[in-house]
């Protein structure tokens, strides 16, 4: 159904989809400032959801060999090696961001790991981010799906029904984040030719469990919960980081007024979104759909009028 506001703007997606009295919207807050790039989320996701192997290839792109989010990769950890001295995750207020934060002398006796001299430290620092389907408030994939295979769950998430999808691929082109994809292999895998992506572990949620990736994350970089609560936590976290002088910290996808109505899975990033392969200001394509249909309507009428005029006064 097209409601007054439901192609754009802040809405509660489950209520907008017609659920009466749905549970609180669920989502992820992925805090990349504590991600250690262990890929536990990638593995847990594959195991729980029985996602077949992705192409394994040494890509030469840091530690990222899983390439991208696609039908066979529902969590993807991005690795970015940034020039600059190791240890610095971000800058001091008023300082260049790439400078390391000086270690704080706690006055403790030296013990544990040996002190590494500065010259021996790597000359780069890491940005790591575990990416996933954003479960958009206005999900282009869902809007354009002609079979109703993609649907909004009571938790406000977006899920593919494998047995209904006919593999038209429209959702693939519509997603502004390049998440969903038609499965192409390997031979013998289930659901080849069918669109696949993260379900936010719908089967676990209905059982009151946390999604597999959030469960496996050892640093709580991936936090799962009610979107309202996560947004509050994210605001606090970004404020705390700014206070520590990490001025590059920013939230991505948390704003319900943004181009997709805010995402259910949103992020704390330490650099511009495009550095992580995310679109900087994505907009759901169906925001412009009424306009597109209007223009097409005018063109169609013009075509009909043109045909009529061509025959005018020319009775054979």
């Amino acid at each position, binding site marked *: 159904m*097209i409601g007054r506001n439901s*192609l*754009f*703007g802040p809405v509660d997606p489950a209520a907008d989809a017609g659920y009466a009295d749905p549970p609180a919207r669920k989502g992820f807050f992925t805090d990349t400032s504590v991600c250690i790039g262990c890929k536990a989320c990638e593995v847990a996701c594959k195991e729980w959801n029985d996602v077949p192997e992705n*192409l394994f*290839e040494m*890509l030469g*792109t840091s530690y*990222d060999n899983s*390439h991208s989010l*696609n*039908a*066979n990769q529902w969590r993807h950890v991005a690795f970015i090696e940034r020039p600059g001295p190791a240890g610095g995750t971000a*800058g001091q207020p008023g300082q260049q*961001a*790439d400078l390391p934060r000086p270690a704080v002398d706690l006055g403790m006796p030296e013990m544990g790991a040996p002190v590494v001299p500065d010259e021996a430290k790597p000359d780069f620092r890491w940005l790591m981010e575990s990416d996933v389907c954003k479960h958009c408030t206005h999900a282009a994939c869902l809007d*354009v799906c*002609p*079979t109703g*295979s993609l649907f909004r769950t009571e938790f406000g998430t977006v899920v593919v029904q494998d047995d*209904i*999808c*006919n593999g*038209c691929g*429209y959702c*693939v*082109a*519509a*997603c502004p984040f*390049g998440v969903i*994809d*038609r499965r*192409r292999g390997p031979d013998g895998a289930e659901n080849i030719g069918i*669109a696949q992506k993260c379900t936010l572990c719908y089967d676990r949620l209905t059982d009151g469990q946390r999604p597999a990736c959030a469960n496996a994350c050892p640093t709580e970089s991936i936090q799962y919960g009610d979107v309202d609560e996560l947004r509050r936590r994210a605001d606090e976290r970004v404020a705390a980081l700014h206070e520590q002088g990490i001025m590059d910290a*920013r939230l991505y996808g948390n*704003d*319900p007024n*943004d*181009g997709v109505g805010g995402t259910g899975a949103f992020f704390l990033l330490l650099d*511009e979104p*495009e550095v992580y*392969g995310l*679109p900087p200001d994505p907009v759901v*394509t*169906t925001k*412009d759909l009424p306009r*597109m249909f209007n*223009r097409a309507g*005018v063109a*169609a009428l*013009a*075509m*009909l009028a*043109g*045909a009529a*005029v*061509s*025959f005018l006064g*020319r009775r*054979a």
Partner: protein
Amino acid sequence: MSKPPDNRVVDTSTRQQPAEWSEPTHGGSPSRRAGRGARGGRDARGQRRREGVGDVMVPDAEFTSYYGRQVVKPAPWEHDIAAYLFTGGVAAGSAMLAAGADLTGRPALRRVARFGSIGGLGLSVGFLVHDLGRPSRFLNMMRVVKLTSPMSVGTWILTLHGPFAGLAFAAEVADMLPEPVRRGRWAPLVGLLSRLGTPAGLVSGLTAPPVAAYTAVLLSDTATPSWHSAHEELPFVFCGSAAAASAGLAMVGTPTSQAGPARTYAVGGAVVELLAERKMEQSMGLMAEPLHQGIAGRLMRASKVLTAAGAVGALVGGRSRAVSVVSGAALMAGSLCTRFGVFEAGIASAKDPKYTVVPQRERLDRGEPVRYAPPDRRGQ
């Protein structure tokens, strides 16, 4: 917010092909490291192609990306869909010409147009089904009517239009049957079909324009940069192209004495297509670039030449059967090039992160991110 000094890597050599299943380069070779990347491919012939950019010359933008990888995914569609854009347009325009020919007493034009209508439709459905990941589930499209999905809307438009076009075609065939058959055992059926031809053809003509126009919405309603940014003018390009192609077919198949309206329609369609295409490129900004590069660029250039030549032929050579046939064929070829060109440009724009990142980044840097404004604060 302080920005790190210079993290803007303008990547060149590290652009990677998507390494997903069954990509053509899938071979697991680590030596593919310096991949063909979108920009790499362009550099090979960069000089020439940049000349081709002509009046929409855009300076090379600096932008950051994740190892040069695409941000949005290209539609996983084969050339079936590009071909369908063409056959659907021929079908729609032909249905209109057939109705006009029927009403104004031009049996030869009507016959060719009815054949064009049903032939175009048959091919279209074949292309559409073939392109599905699960063709056997084609009918799942009929589960729902979804106004937010142009593909669903299009399916229902075709479902509405198809039977009437089919009936008009059946009537045409009935009229072509030899006299003994028409009067024989099947006479009642043949007679009924003949009588239904005109009303069915009329309905098929009136339901045809959406068949031609919706395909523009189908492409524009995606995150594919060069399709979405074309949404203002693409319906006019496609409708003009459909008119030109269907009229071209009629010019090829109809004696010149009856093809007058087809020639007029051809000229009108060609002019609309060429003008709308020009306007479209102007309003697309950076996203028009893929229309000038590589295969898409060659197709779009060919399309303009063929369409213009065909229109001139239709305008001045109407008396000559030979000129009509050649002009009609040129118009059809021009339309085919337009459809494939637009299709290819869109796919190329999705594969290159530039077309996703740069416009959005520029919007942000101007301080104009897309944000929802409640109705009472609009336009301020």
